[in-house]
């Protein structure tokens, strides 16, 4: 059986830290069962990083709306696996971005690449007017 946690935040960069800290505390729930401390630290940090990227994107690409945007994070814990999904009301996008062309010293375009690199599995779907990006990793 899995456990579900949901967190809804205003779509404002001020709340990125709440998204990260909640993610850190949820990811910590999976630790402490004879894994190496460095694997556990990496697991927690990788979620912190991925969620920071995804939340920042949801806020950055929110566009203009009548009502202030919100972002909903859903955490699903199944044994040693954590899946975090972010839902926003932005325009659709593709997660299959190219690797950053690092030699040209790019200032942007790293976010989705980093998410795919640090997670085991990343999926995207469109539901009604919402984007849902799901990121999962097993400890």
């Amino acid at each position, binding site marked *: 059986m899995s456990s579900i946690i949901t967190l809804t935040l205003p779509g404002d*960069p*001020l709340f*990125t*830290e709440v998204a*990260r800290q909640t993610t850190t505390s949820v990811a910590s729930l999976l630790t402490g069962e004879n894994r190496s401390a460095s694997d556990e*630290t*990496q697991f927690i*940090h*990788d979620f*912190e*990083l991925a969620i*920071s*990227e995804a939340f*920042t994107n949801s*806020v*950055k690409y929110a566009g203009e709306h009548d009502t202030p945007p919100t972002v909903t994070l859903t955490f699903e814990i199944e044994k040693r696996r954590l899946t975090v999904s972010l839902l926003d009301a932005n325009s659709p996008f593709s997660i299959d971005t190219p690797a*950053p062309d*690092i*030699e*040209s*010293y*790019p*200032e*942007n375009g*790293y*976010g989705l*690449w*980093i998410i795919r*690199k*640090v997670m085991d599995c990343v999926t995207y779907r469109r539901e009604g007017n919402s984007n849902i990006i799901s990121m999962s990793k097993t400890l």
Partner: protein
Amino acid sequence: MIITETSANGIVIVALEGRLDALSAPKLRGSPPVADPKTAVVLDLEKVDFMDSSGLGAIVGAAREKGDPACGIVLSCMNNKVRRTFETTNAQRLFHIFDDTSAAVDFAATRQIART
């Protein structure tokens, strides 16, 4: 994020403390020694608790605008969390990276002399 500027051997050391993300990256990008294309900077990352791609982009973008990108921003004291963000994007290849700030300063000073 707290940005502290000092200098040694004519090199400006910019030490960062706290979180380097979308909220704080513009502050780093706009700090005079980082923004000025002519100033060589040692960026001390020891006390960065967290860095995502917005922070990385600010550092890489600022380096691009320096006369000699690879020597315009020299990095020191990267912790594991910061290293992870650099390595997933291969951005560590763009920089000279030192474990301690004084070695980074020595390197930057030598390069600056070589250029003048």
